[in-house]
């Protein structure tokens, strides 16, 4: 049975093909359209996932939310906040009338499927399924937290075998995701994009505004909460999510054009909202543990990408194992919806555990060679062993390498197949990559990739199934490593890092590269950041990779077994 999952028309459109309960291809539209967070119908992603397996139609196409329920929320909200909601109603209604309400017709027309082949799964069930049905757990507590689905913004429940049950919810407009996004906008970053920048800014500050943040949100002991809407306008305005009362508490907002510079006040505000978010998540996680009685947690929704909070959950929420799917945000709704239908609705046994993220398009050596020849790009081709030795040596010598191989990663993190790699031991490397390669804010930290066997010696990663498999966990760098300043380029200002643990079973070639690097340097750990420039999606094809290589200060480009040096730049 082939089930195609689709998410679109909000942000991060994606498509995922599930064949007999196993995802065979998943991709976000942005990788093909080159528009970051592309929200349009994922035609190109669908083309990719369907051609990858079979040209025939899917048995079912599943959309990741219930459009009419969401429309009901939109209308009721507009009525409830009348007349302040006029602007939002006018803009939102036009979008609903033009596209969102016709998603079923759009799917039927574009995919040539029958009416009864198009199914819809509630937004938070899609999130829940994207975590639980990809996890290695037979039973699990489930926590989903995001901006908003139809009505639900937060849900807790449990999963058992092929069943998911969501028990309690918090409803719009009370939303932890929207609270965090409001601060994201206030701090001058783009909503649904800059949240991780707020997280990155937080370690530079002290949480001195926590009491003020707590005037915005009333938190109960079980983690449930409500927002004080006096301070918000996301329910009435399409442009500014905070009201005029908000700056009375926090001062003037940071101007969006102040790229890279921030005051201590901004960092303090970031630290404060981060702390409150962590506290709420911890309480929610504990409640989900009590309700489910499980020692496993499946966590999803955009807020699950808060890798700093995830460490707190691993340490303090009382779970032995936590699973977070790499695309925990709305893109993850695509495989989630499809898996929910296959497992829960159709009552099929589970046949899948996600232990890697390489579900995107891949390019053979022949494709890459043809591209290089067509573009007349100077290059050298190496055999596998020699290539890895050469690249490891170049990294150890201080060169910055664009590393492109195999199928692209599912989700926002680069996990060794579309990565920029550098020597994490060199203190100057973070500044150099931020300034001359990625062109982004100087406070933005970098993550390491580390051999699984070396990770415990370098980082304080809690035992058990860990989100660090998909780079979803910020944890302390071991004190000995910090004292000797062994990994300065990836150690954050607060002594933490966001490691990506590399396993031989799932990333063999990348694992061998780290082994070669360890042979040379004694450390099985490199700096790994996504292969893109600031504001662009991660590269997808060799052409994207080459264009990015030429537009940045990288020293070396590796395309499968081909190496392009700096003198090969056009």
């Amino acid at each position, binding site marked *: 049975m082939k089930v195609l999952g689709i998410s679109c028309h909000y942000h991060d459109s994606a498509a995922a093909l599930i064949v007999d309960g196993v995802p065979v291809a998943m991709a976000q539209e942005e990788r093909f359209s080159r528009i970051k967070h592309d929200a349009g119908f994922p035609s190109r992603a669908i083309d990719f996932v369907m051609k990858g397996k079979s040209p025939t139609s899917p048995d079912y196409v*599943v959309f990741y939310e*219930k*459009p*009419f*329920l969401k429309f*009901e*929320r939109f209308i*009721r*909200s*507009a*009525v*409830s*906040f*009348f*007349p302040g909601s*006029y602007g939002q*109603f*006018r803009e939102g*209604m*036009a979008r609903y*009338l033009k596209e969102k309400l016709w*998603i*079923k017709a759009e799917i039927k027309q574009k995919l040539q499927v029958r*009416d*009864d082949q*198009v*199914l*819809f*799964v*509630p937004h938070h*069930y899609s999130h829940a399924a994207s975590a639980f049905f990809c996890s290695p757990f037979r039973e699990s507590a489930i926590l989903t937290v995001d901006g908003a689905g139809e009505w*639900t913004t937060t*849900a*807790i*429940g449990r999963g058992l075998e092929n069943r998911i049950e*969501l*028990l*309690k*919810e*918090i*409803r*719009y*407009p*009370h939303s932890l995701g929207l609270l965090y996004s409001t601060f994201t906008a206030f701090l001058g970053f783009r909503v649904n994009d800059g949240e991780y920048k707020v997280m990155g800014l937080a370690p530079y500050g002290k949480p001195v505004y926590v009491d003020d943040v707590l005037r915005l949100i*009333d938190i*109960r002991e*079980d983690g*449930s*909460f*409500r*927002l004080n*809407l006096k301070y918000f306008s996301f*329910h009435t305005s399409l442009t500014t999510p905070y009201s005029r009362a908000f700056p009375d508490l926090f001062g003037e907002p940071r101007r969006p054009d102040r790229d890279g510079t921030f005051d201590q006040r901004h960092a303090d505000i970031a630290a404060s909202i981060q702390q409150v978010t962590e506290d709420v998540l911890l309480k929610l996680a504990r409640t989900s543990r009590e309700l489910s009685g499980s020692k496993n947690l499946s966590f999803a929704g955009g807020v699950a990408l808060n890798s700093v909070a995830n460490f707190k959950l691993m340490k303090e929420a009382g779970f032995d194992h936590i699973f977070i799917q790499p695309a925990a945000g709305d893109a993850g709704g695509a495989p989630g919806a499809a898996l929910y*239908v296959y497992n*829960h*609705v*159709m009552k099929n046994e589970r046949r899948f555990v996600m232990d890697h993220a390489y579900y995107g398009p891949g390019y053979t050596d022949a494709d890459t060679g043809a591209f290089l020849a067509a573009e007349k790009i100077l290059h050298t081709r190496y055999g596998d062993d020699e290539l890895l030795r050469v690249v490891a040596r170049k990294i150890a010598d201080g060169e910055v390498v664009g590393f492109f191989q195999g199928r692209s990663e599912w989700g926002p993190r680069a996990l060794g197949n579309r990565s920029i790699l550098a020597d994490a031991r060199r203190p100057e490397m973070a500044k150099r990559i931020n300034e001359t390669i990625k062109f982004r804010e100087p406070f933005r930290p970098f993550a390491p990739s580390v051999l699984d066997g070396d990770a415990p010696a370098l980082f304080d990663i809690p035992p058990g199934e860990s989100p660090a498999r998909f780079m979803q966990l910020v944890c302390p760098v071991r004190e000995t490593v910090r004292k000797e300043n062994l990994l300065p380029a990836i150690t954050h200002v607060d002594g933490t890092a966001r490691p990506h643990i590399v396993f031989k079973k799932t990333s063999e070639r990348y694992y061998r590269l780290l082994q070669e690097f360890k042979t040379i340097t004694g450390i099985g750990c490199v700096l790994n950041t996504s292969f893109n420039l600031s504001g662009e999606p991660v590269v997808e094809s060799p052409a994207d990779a080459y264009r990015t290589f030429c537009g940045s200060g990288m020293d070396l480009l590796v395309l499968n077994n081909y190496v392009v040096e700096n003198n090969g730049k056009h």
Partner: protein
Amino acid sequence: MTGVHKKIWSRWLALGEKIGDLVMLCVLTVSYFVLFLIPSLYFTWGADTVGKQYRDGSYFEEMPDRDDTPREAEEMA
């Protein structure tokens, strides 16, 4: 169709789109203020409204039961 015809046709299309957007704006504005006024009064003073619940104890709400049949999954609501 020649290049000149195409150009003229695309201008008409663009104009039509602008007029359509304007008509939609007018319809939406009128419907918003006419249709929503009375329900909003009801919701403001007559019933529990979106985002205005105050209560003791937990803010959690019980999630509705789901049949979880293919038939239900066909529903958009």
